[in-house]
């Protein structure tokens, strides 16, 4: 991949972000050193890929989701333990999009969106998009953003989150099902709600 000529994040942006993260982490962890470590790791991972972020709001959302994950790990007392994270969102049987035979439920089968070429410049569309991303369950949102916005591959995401590829694939499938359903009803008016 070729390097981006311009880093979308200025140093002042990063410092501001770091301060916000630190305040958040200290509050959660009640320990300045642990907070510093968690912030450092979350930032390092994110900034390595910052050239793929020109949407600052998105970067912030993502960095904070990583930070929350690290804080949760510290609080659970299994920080850095090479244990497979339990994946509460990975069971395969709670989907409302499919019937018991695995066919699309009535009203859930995707209908055509039509031409999406012009949407990229449509700010209103991106506001709806962000809103749809926000209502995804946390784990799904996190892996979707790592995959699509940071453009990490399966191996990198599984390493970072200590989950198995099979779990990742389930999470991404779920995320895409939900996101497309949300966009269909909130923007494209493609399916009945």
């Amino acid at each position, binding site marked *: 991949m070729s390097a981006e000529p311009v880093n979308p994040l200025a140093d002042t942006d990063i410092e501001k972000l770091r301060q916000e993260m630190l305040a958040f982490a200290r509050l959660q962890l009640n320990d300045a050193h642990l907070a510093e470590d968690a912030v450092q790791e979350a930032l390092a991972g994110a900034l390595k890929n910052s050239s793929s972020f*020109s*949407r600052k709001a998105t970067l912030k959302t993502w960095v904070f989701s990583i930070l929350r994950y690290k804080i949760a790990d510290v609080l659970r007392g299994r920080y850095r333990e090479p244990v497979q994270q339990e994946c509460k969102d990975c069971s395969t049987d709670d*989907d409302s999009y499919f019937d018991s035979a695995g066919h*699309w439920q009535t009203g859930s089968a*995707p209908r055509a969106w039509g031409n999406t070429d012009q949407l*990229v410049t449509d700010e209103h569309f991106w506001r709806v998009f962000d809103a749809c991303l926000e209502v995804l369950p946390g784990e799904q949102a996190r892996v979707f953003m790592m995959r699509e916005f940071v453009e990490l591959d399966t191996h990198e995401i599984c390493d970072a989150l200590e989950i198995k590829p099979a779990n990742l*694939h389930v999470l991404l*499938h779920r995320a*895409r099902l939900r996101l497309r359903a949300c966009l269909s009803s909130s923007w494209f008016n493609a399916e009945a709600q």
Partner: protein
Amino acid sequence: MMLSCEQASKLLSEAQERPLKLTERAGLTMHLAMCQGCREFGRQVSSLRDLIRRSEDHDDTQGK
């Protein structure tokens, strides 16, 4: 063996992460030949990726 829509959409999603095996592609092709919902799902999954990629190129010119 016929794939269900759930399985077919899962493969369409996984195809964004890894190359599908020959047998998976064959099963998917058969399913898609007769399932419009899954064909749309596949299109929309690629549209999402395409939109996100292009939004990143576009955003710098927006000044926001």
